[in-house]
């Protein structure tokens, strides 16, 4: 070296400084985390405007999810291959004006539960008498999720049961019971799916049904001929389940039209949801795939065009597990939240927050998860947007945690060495080392990101009371007790179903809309409401399934902040009709029927 000693000393100091930089970043981040100490209700209300209290026991909900046990050939990695099935979906099945909910179970012979809202803070399981409990019989597979939609427009929400096994359709007999109508509907004999959505893709006023397969539908997971049933690539797998689109023909009959309308994929779908992303009046379909890129099927009036890569959402392959839409910037446009995997030191995929770009001639998205602070959520699963503190900005609730077994031993090393190897190895379950009681991204803290309205989200989960560390799967939001606040339901794999009762600072006001279609499907799924108040606007849409294996309350909840003056709500129905509702007052739930 020709440089002087001083120059070399300076160089050495700069070098040490550079090495210390990541540690400094880590320290700052850790301090920020520490600042989120647990607060009591009063403190949380003052600081963040809301507080969550877990009340499942007081509400009479003692449901514990049971995971499936598949073919013994998979015993070594059973925790991984049987890691899903806990789900929750909200429905007012008896039209009494109070949200009920359905929780799926996933062990053979286990019972699903339909919790009827008793209007007094408690729920009662009525799945047995209603005919929705005993749906996991040997030989028929087990439940993975459920979505509700009034497919025959009789005013009562019907149930599609997503399964690894024989999927089921139940007709709601005016809230007094359910009749199994699977065989006449023409549904497939066997699927291994986790994702399904009700939506009226062709605008004929009848709800259609999308089902996205995960494992190949050719596999009976309880009687495997081969152990070659895993994905053939961790990020480029195309040996998953096929996709189905059932066009509703009326009178309880459906026709499978997926290929005919341009939907063809064998990626490993884990979540799907529909929304009108371009304001065309036609609902588009977003599919979050595990082991690969997301797919975005743009609806061109009853025919779909896959535009994942063209719009930017389908370029970088990750482990998609969630699809939720939210007008997070109050600009009348939906951002899309897709959850993925982040594990310190091993795999940092980061979750995606796809925000539409301004000024583009066609739909383009950019991932702003990092910029907005919602990128890292551990092994993330279900997430939903909702205004948890009624301040007029949509917040984000995320549950996470994959497999919580040993507190001290991790499976990550074995997972990473097989996942990165050749397709012949990764695809064969026999080549995966046994779990032997180890955890894989277990015992993770949840994320409750509140939106500051200025394109930043801050995690306040610990402070506001979302302190569980179960293996969360499905999240659904609903105003469970008609109080004008969004409560949170969380279904946990192999764990209890949690009800986080929300208490919101009373200064922040709200309004809710319960829509009913006439020319449109009666569930009003796909109806899009733009609410205008205090010079602000926010758009929300009635959904036939969102998040991960979940469905929020169909009633739309708008937080309004302080002293709101509501100008109007503009409803664009799936039929194309636009209806303006004026003279809305805060603090009320409005029932709005599509004008004839």
């Amino acid at each position: 070296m020709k440089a002087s000693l001083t120059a070399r000393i300076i160089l050495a100091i700069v070098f040490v400084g550079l090495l210390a930089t990541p540690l400094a970043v880590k320290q700052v981040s850790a301090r920020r985390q520490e600042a989120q100490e647990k607060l009591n209700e009063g403190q949380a209300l003052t600081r963040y405007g809301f507080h969550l209290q877990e009340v499942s026991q007081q509400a009479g909900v003692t449901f514990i999810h049971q995971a499936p046990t598949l073919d013994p050939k998979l015993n070594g990695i059973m925790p991984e291959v049987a890691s899903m099935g806990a789900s929750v979906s909200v429905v007012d099945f008896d039209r009494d004006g109070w949200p009920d909910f359905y929780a799926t179970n996933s062990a053979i012979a286990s019972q699903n539960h339909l919790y009827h809202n008793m209007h007094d803070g408690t729920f009662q399981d009525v799945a047995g008498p209603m005919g929705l409990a005993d749906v996991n019989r040997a030989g028929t597979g087990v439940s993975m999720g459920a979505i509700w939609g009034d497919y025959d427009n009789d005013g009562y929400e019907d149930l599609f049961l997503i399964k690894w096994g024989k999927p089921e359709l139940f007709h709601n007999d005016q809230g007094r019971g359910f009749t199994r109508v699977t065989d006449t509907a023409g549904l497939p004999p066997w699927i291994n799916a986790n994702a399904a959505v009700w939506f009226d893709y062709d605008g004929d006023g009848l709800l259609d049904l999308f089902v996205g397969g995960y494992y190949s539908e050719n596999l009976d997971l309880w009687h495997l001929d081969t152990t070659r049933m895993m994905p053939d690539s961790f990020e480029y797998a195309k040996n998953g389940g096929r996709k189905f689109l059932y066009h509703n023909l009326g009178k309880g009959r459906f026709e499978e039209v997926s290929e005919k309308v341009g939907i063809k994929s064998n990626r490993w779908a884990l979540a799907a949801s529909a929304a009108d992303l371009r304001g065309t009046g036609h609902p588009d379909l977003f599919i979050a795939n595990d082991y690969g890129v997301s797919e975005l099927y743009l609806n061109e009036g009853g025919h779909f065009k896959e535009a994942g890569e063209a719009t930017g959402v389908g370029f970088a392959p990750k482990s998609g597990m969630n699809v939720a839409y939210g007008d997070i910037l109050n600009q009348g446009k939906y951002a899309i939240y897709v959850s993925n995997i982040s594990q310190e030191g091993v795999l940092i995929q980061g979750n995606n927050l796809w925000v539409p770009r301004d000024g583009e001639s066609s739909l383009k998205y950019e991932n702003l998860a990092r910029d907005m602070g919602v990128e890292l959520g551990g092994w993330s699963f279900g997430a939903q947007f909702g205004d948890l503190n009624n301040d007029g900005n949509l917040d984000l609730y995320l549950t996470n945690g994959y497999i919580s077994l040993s507190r001290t031993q991790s499976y990550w090393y074995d997972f990473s060495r097989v996942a990165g190897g050749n397709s012949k190895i990764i695809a064969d379950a026999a080549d995966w080392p046994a779990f032997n009681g180890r955890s894989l991204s277990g015992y993770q803290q949840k994320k409750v990101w509140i939106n500051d309205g200025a394109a930043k989200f801050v995690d306040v989960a610990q402070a506001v009371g979302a302190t569980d560390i179960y293996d969360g799967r499905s999240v659904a939001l609903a105003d469970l007790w008609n109080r004008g606040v969004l409560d949170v339901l969380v279904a946990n794999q192999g764990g209890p179903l949690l009800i986080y009762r929300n208490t919101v600072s009373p200064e922040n006001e709200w309004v809710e809309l319960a829509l009913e279609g006439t020319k449109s499907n009666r569930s009003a799924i796909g109806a899009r409401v733009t609410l205008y108040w205090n010079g602000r606007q926010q758009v929300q849409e009635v959904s036939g399934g969102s998040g991960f294996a979940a469905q929020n309350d169909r009633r739309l909840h708008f937080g309004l902040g302080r002293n709101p003056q509501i100008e109007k709500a503009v409803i664009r129905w799936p039929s194309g009709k636009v209806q303006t509702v004026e003279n809305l007052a805060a603090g009320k739930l409005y029932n709005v029927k599509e004008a004839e």
Partner: protein
Amino acid sequence: MSNEVSTAQPAKLALAWKRFFSPSNRYLSPLLISCVLLVGQLSYGILESYTRTLLAIATSLVAELILSRIYMGKWPNLASAYITGISVGILVRSPAFWPYALCALISIMSKYVLRVHDRHIWNPSNFGIVAMFLLASGTVAGLSIQWGNFVWPMLVIWTLGSAIIWRLRRFHISATYVLWFLAFALLRSWITGDPWRSEISPITGPMYQLFIFFMITDPKTTVRSKTGQYITVSAVAAVEMVLRLHQAVYAPFYALFLVGPTAMLIEMWMDARRARLLVAHA
């Protein structure tokens, strides 16, 4: 005359090819690693993004230019800095931008700071990446699953890589390492009871291709004698096996980080002792 032209042209072409593939061509390795990047990106889009990789390459080149000018008093050949930058750009996986710049900077600076007898003893990108794994694990992971798990891109790289490494007279290093890895994988399988294919699995992934063809063969940070090279690369494989038994995800990088400089220091000590003996005998 036309005959002379027709025989002279192929001869010239052959000479140009020979020159191009000669061990003295410092651009062979950069060419190979660029091919690796292209194959990976065009087939599977392995990069976190083009911009992040370009940031790593640009940081690496600029740092090399400045540091070499200031501390060596000359403008450098940028081939090695390019390899460092592109290695960082491929191997580092982070949604953030700063780790790419920081890792490239640390890698290049390590060549100027961590020197013994005026030689740098760590492979620059190995040092930088290990530093990031250890110090920034919350933001940084390594390349692992982003290459599709399919055999064809690997075969292209193995074929191309082996041919070029052969011409550079360093094929024996890569081959020795691969043989030891396979042997130790079987031994690990016997010890742990895990399926042998799961132990072999890592070497069929993309991370190892860069490790095998670029890191362990780096002329500047490998010992000079052929015997020493055999011993060193065997020791790397052995240490890696121990680390793997302790479930270190990035075992090969850590093994090279530990063994590489140790081998260099031993070689320097032996050289010095030999020189002293020669002086004494003289």
